[in-house]
């Protein structure tokens, strides 16, 4: 007989995995800005996220404790001298997803740090958004992120977006041992102290990646944002098995050698939905009658709404994330602690891989907050993020099938994703080979004055960014044998990406079984909220 402790552990681990049986309820899946309710084949394994971990009891106290007891560094107050030059860098709007309820955790950290800086006689303080080649945040988004008081005091002269294309705003340090360019925001590089305020949603974020990618330029990003490095990264989410992270570590160590960097990393739980949308956090078995009613009412209402309105509605519902850990200090030991807490929240152990894996595709990705999830972003979600949400071993078998549910509409936001449009409609018809695209077109797009202008003066992603989106999906594309988009409303978009399409999920499952065999195993990943499968072979 198993002792109670073991049974409890087994129960905890296995309760996140449900096997579909004859009497099991139908499962809801994200279908872009809509929901599908699907009867899945008996035997399908449905993987749910862990329940949200409990928040730190007192956020302000946790932040103060972290900066007063940092990892392998002196406390923040001891690093400050009157008259010194300090830059505070912040993660941009790509984190967290969906954007969290105000006050944002960055605001909470800033309120404490800025007060400490002021009390220590440090007046030369700039707040820089570490957006790298991401779009500039709008004034309203910037205000929401730090709160009105800080915004009014610092914006626009001392609170701004990083500009990777400002020829006078970037400095180069010495290269890494591998010859990688180490370029950095001038203000940050010339500061006596750089404080980086991070939000860690998944283990891919944070650590050396914060400063090394967030405050740099195209030349430095090329070192690791390329198809070969991506192919050499067994898992984006496991830094020690990722060539991408090794490269950012080398770059980060050069930065740490030249500049004093104090990291403040925060970890959030996965409470993406609450209130009227809390049913999205539940297993269907646990639905009450009221939950079922809310689901059907939401599904009905969404069907009546135009797509733009649905997007507006979804983006107006902020996530109810809680902070579950705050760590501070030197880059590597701080991030180690962050990662441990991250895994506690996101890791879901599962036994073995599956032949077919189904992802319900949500309306949001890191690159379309307040905008459209265009086809290239659906691709990066499917082959980049969702495929990679694992700990070393992908959930889908080599040569297996991924099924996603999304309308895959041919819609792009010309304001946010200007270079994506040309990439998708001019380059993809020519080739899908990431290396050819990199060699032939990446630099041309990156240096295109129109795209540079839209990045610097508008709110568009940089000309190189659509390439990164395509490279990001490289491992997923190389690994799977077939990708099927169920519910794709046109033929040409899936065809351009080399995907198959069906009208319904059951047709997609039939097609996948035709490819993998009638006894193919099927898993469904219910994400969001975010989870990472820890596959045991």
């Amino acid at each position: 007989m198993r002792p109670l402790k073991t049974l409890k552990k087994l129960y905890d681990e296995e309760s996140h995995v449900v096997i579909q049986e004859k009497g099991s309820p139908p499962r809801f899946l994200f279908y872009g800005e809509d929901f599908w309710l699907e009867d899945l084949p008996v035997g399908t394994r449905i993987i749910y996220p862990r329940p949200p971990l409990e928040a730190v009891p007192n956020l302000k106290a946790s932040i103060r404790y972290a900066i007063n007891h940092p990892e392998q560094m002196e406390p923040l107050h001891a690093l400050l001298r009157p008259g010194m030059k300090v830059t505070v860098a912040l993660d941009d709007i790509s984190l967290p997803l969906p954007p969290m309820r105000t006050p944002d955790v960055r605001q909470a950290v800033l309120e404490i740090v800025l007060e400490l800086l002021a009390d220590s006689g440090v007046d030369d303080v700039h707040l820089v958004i570490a957006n790298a080649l991401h779009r500039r945040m709008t004034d309203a988004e910037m205000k929401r992120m730090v709160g009105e008081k800080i915004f009014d005091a610092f914006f626009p002269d001392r609170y701004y977006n990083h500009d990777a294309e400002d020829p006078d705003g970037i400095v180069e340090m010495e290269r890494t041992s591998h010859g990688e360019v180490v370029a950095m925001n001038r203000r940050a590089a010339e500061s006596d102290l750089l404080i980086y305020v991070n939000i860690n949603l998944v283990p891919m974020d944070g650590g050396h990646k914060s400063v090394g990618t967030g405050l740099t330029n195209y030349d430095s990003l090329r070192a690791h944002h390329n198809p070969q490095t991506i192919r050499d990264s067994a898992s984006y989410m496991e830094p020690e098995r990722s060539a991408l992270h090794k490269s950012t570590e080398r770059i980060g160590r050069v930065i740490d050698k030249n500049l004093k960097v104090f990291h403040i990393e925060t970890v959030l739980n996965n409470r993406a939905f609450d209130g009227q949308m809390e049913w999205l956090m539940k297993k269907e078995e646990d639905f009450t009658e009221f939950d079922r009613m809310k689901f059907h009412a939401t599904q009905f209402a969404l069907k009546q709404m135009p797509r733009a309105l649905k997007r507006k509605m979804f983006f107006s519902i902020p996530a109810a994330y809680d902070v579950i850990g705050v760590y501070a200090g030197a880059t590597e030991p701080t991030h180690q602690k962050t990662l441990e807490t991250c895994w506690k929240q996101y890791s879901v152990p599962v036994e073995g891989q599956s032949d077919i894996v189904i992802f319900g595709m949500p309306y949001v990705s890191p690159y379309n907050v307040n905008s459209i999830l265009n086809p290239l972003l659906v691709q990066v979600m499917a082959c980049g993020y969702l495929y990679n949400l694992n700990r070393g071993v992908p959930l889908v078998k080599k040569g297996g099938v991924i099924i996603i549910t999304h309308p895959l509409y041919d819609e792009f936001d010309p304001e946010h994703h200007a270079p994506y449009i040309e990439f998708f409609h001019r380059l993809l018809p020519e080739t899908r080979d990431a290396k050819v695209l990199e060699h032939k077109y990446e630099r041309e797009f990156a240096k295109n004055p129109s795209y540079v202008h839209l990045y610097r003066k508008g709110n568009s992603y940089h000309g190189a960014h659509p390439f990164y989106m395509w490279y990001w999906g490289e491992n997923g594309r190389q690994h799977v044998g077939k990708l099927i988009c169920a519910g794709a409303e046109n033929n040409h978009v899936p065809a351009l990406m080399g995907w198959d399409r069906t009208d319904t999920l059951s047709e997609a499952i039939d097609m996948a079984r035709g490819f993998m065999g009638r006894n193919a195993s099927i898993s469904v990943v219910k994400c969001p909220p975010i989870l990472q499968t820890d596959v045991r072979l």
Partner: protein
Amino acid sequence: MHSHPTHHRPPEVSARPGRAAFFDVDGTLISTNVVHAFGYYAQNEGSVAGILKRSLGTVASIPLFAALNLVDRKVFNEFFYRSYAGFSEDRLLTMSEDLFEDLLKGAIYPRAQDLITEARRAGCRIVFITGGMDFTMAPLAKYLGADDLIANQMQFVGGKATGKVIPPIIEGANKANVIRDYCEKHHIALNLSHAYSDSASDYAMLTVVGRPTAVNPDLRLRALARSYNWPILDLR
């Protein structure tokens, strides 16, 4: 060839073709147009009678100009440039400097210089191509750092403007021909070059290069840019 280099540079001779950025001017880089410039010359004509005649004539012609512009840009240009008949060449040249200081300089869109600087950083030769008169546009081209200016040239006989433009008039489809000739002459790759305009009347100029961009576009050009996936910029 309607080419007036503002900075004399020898043509690049190398195995690898260069790239250029061709900018329309009126409505793209500045908020004024050819009629504003002419209006300025008219108001500064020299004599009270002359000022009155030309100014009233210009005002009276506005509905006709607008109608012609809608119907056919080429007819509009030919008709419009007749208004210059009788101006003396040195008077026009002198006034063009004042016109730039008084009117054009303040009409440059706030982000125009940024775009030109970015095009230069990308390794492009900067060329302005405009339906305006060369004497009007030269100070602006110099100020914004253009390498070359391609503009209409007025015919002068005995130091007086005839009101005729030395053909071909730089407008519409002709802009594409001129750009093609320019690229051939300067060893520039058309497919790597950029073109910027605000008007659908410059459709030919935009399609002749590999990298067209709509700038502050009118409704027709905005629709075209959306259809052909061209980037859309706002320099205002």
